[in-house]
């Protein structure tokens, strides 16, 4: 199966690989997937307390090129967004941007799940209620 140019670009030049301090109150961490499924994605956001804007985002991913590209793209999109706006990121936007084929849609689903999990981790740390996902993937 051929990968799209954008997937190859993210794979070769991944944006924002790394680790944020998961103990920090301004950092939210989402870890999704499982080794036996061949995909594990960890996405972290750091939120500016005063503005509620995501000022940094990092990822690490175990998975195929599409999984790596989906998470790399997600970190790119998260930076500079408000937490509320980040919550609106839909997996199908990732599918479209990266031209993922149907068998790779689950990679984008993982990325969306990781974003929501990271945001909720941050919210809980801030003493807020986690937001229920409005969309069920499975």
């Amino acid at each position: 199966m051929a990968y799209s140019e954008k997937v190859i670009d993210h794979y070769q030049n991944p944006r924002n690989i790394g680790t944020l301090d998961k103990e920090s109150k301004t950092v939210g961490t989402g870890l999704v997937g499982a080794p036996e499924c061949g995909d594990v994605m960890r996405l972290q956001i750091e939120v500016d307390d005063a503005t509620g804007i995501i000022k940094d985002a990092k990822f690490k991913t175990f998975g195929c090129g599409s999984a790596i590209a989906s998470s790399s793209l997600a970190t790119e999109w998260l930076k500079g967004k408000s937490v509320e706006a980040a919550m609106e990121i839909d997996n199908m936007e990732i599918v479209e941007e990266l031209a993922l084929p149907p068998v790779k849609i689950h990679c984008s689903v993982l990325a969306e799940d990781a974003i929501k999990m990271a945001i909720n981790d941050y919210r809980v740390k801030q003493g807020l209620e986690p937001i229920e996902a409005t969309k069920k993937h499975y």
Partner: protein
Amino acid sequence: MKFPIYLDNNSTTPMDPRVLDAMLPFFNDKFGNAASRNHSFGWSAEEAVDYAREQVARLVGCTSKEIIFTSGATEANNLAIKGVYEMYNSRGNHIITVSTEHKATLDACKKVEKMGGEVTYLSPNEDGRINMTDLEAAITDKTILITIMYGNNEIGVLQDMRAISALAKKNGILFHTDATQAVGKIPVDVQADGIDLMSFTAHKMYGPKGVGALYVRRKNPRVKVTSQMDGGGHERGMRSGTLNVPGIVGFGKACEICQNEMADEASRLSAMRNRLETELLTIEEAYVNGNREFRLPHVANISFKFVEGEGLMMGTKDIAVSSGSACTSASLEPSYVLKSLGLDDELAHSSLRFGLGRFTTEDEIDYAINHVKEAVHKLREMSPLWEMFKDGIDLKTIEWAEH
């Protein structure tokens, strides 16, 4: 060096130019049907097929009458398994095989089950070899066939043909082997190995695709299979259909070349394979899958823990290898062969299969070693599992949000 470097010779081999040369006339002037008995076009085609049949038979130590040409090993496996079942099920309906067989064998066995047969699927040891006591215990008075492959396509592990055939013979059971990966690579002799039926194919030994053979023993015992393809009664009635003359000629030539060059080739390839393997095992948390002693000379299957196989292949795009990961399939299931060995999921998802071949060079191996090392390093830098491992976290203690 030409890129990408081809290290996937277990899936198919390039044609040897000498094979192509032998085939070409049979696409042009010598286009006759080998079954045409009335004119020279047919005669020369038949003569060429007879000669090729001799070349094929010689490589595996049988007579030419015992070679049934097919479209490949998949068809040969189907003919052997379903054909034996249909021919002999009045004597019993039980077949024994192994969970690490090729799908062509496993699915033919599944079909036999639908036809009313019973099949035992043995699990191999973690090194990929079967336990002879398991095999012996699986035999019942209804067992008519044992089908166990010679060398495994994913891990290259060789089964003990002689021990298996001796056990089969002692119990009056036919023994079929899928020797697709072994014939032409290591000495295979149906007499010495005690094989009753054997599948193999041209395109794994530098011959053309679309032609293979089933060896069917004619003496001690005389074996028959019910044809799965009916028609003009070609191939002693066991496989109808106009013979693929150019393909068969190429298959014969490929066998002849293998017979002459196999010994040197095997020692050259195993030396290169061992060098590749030794170098790649210097990578932390890298493991060879399968028995390393009883193994085809040109195969290495290595897991690089904490990197995913398909992602790794994308990082090693200059080399054509195969991965045990099945991320491209909807199932997300990793290789059933590696799972059968009892590999952890993260190891099964992290494997690459290297298949060296006749045209593999030392320079290519050097390149592959460096290329894989770099890619593994790069992917581990972005692997959360690697980070957890380095932090001393046991991955088994984590509650994964499975999807």
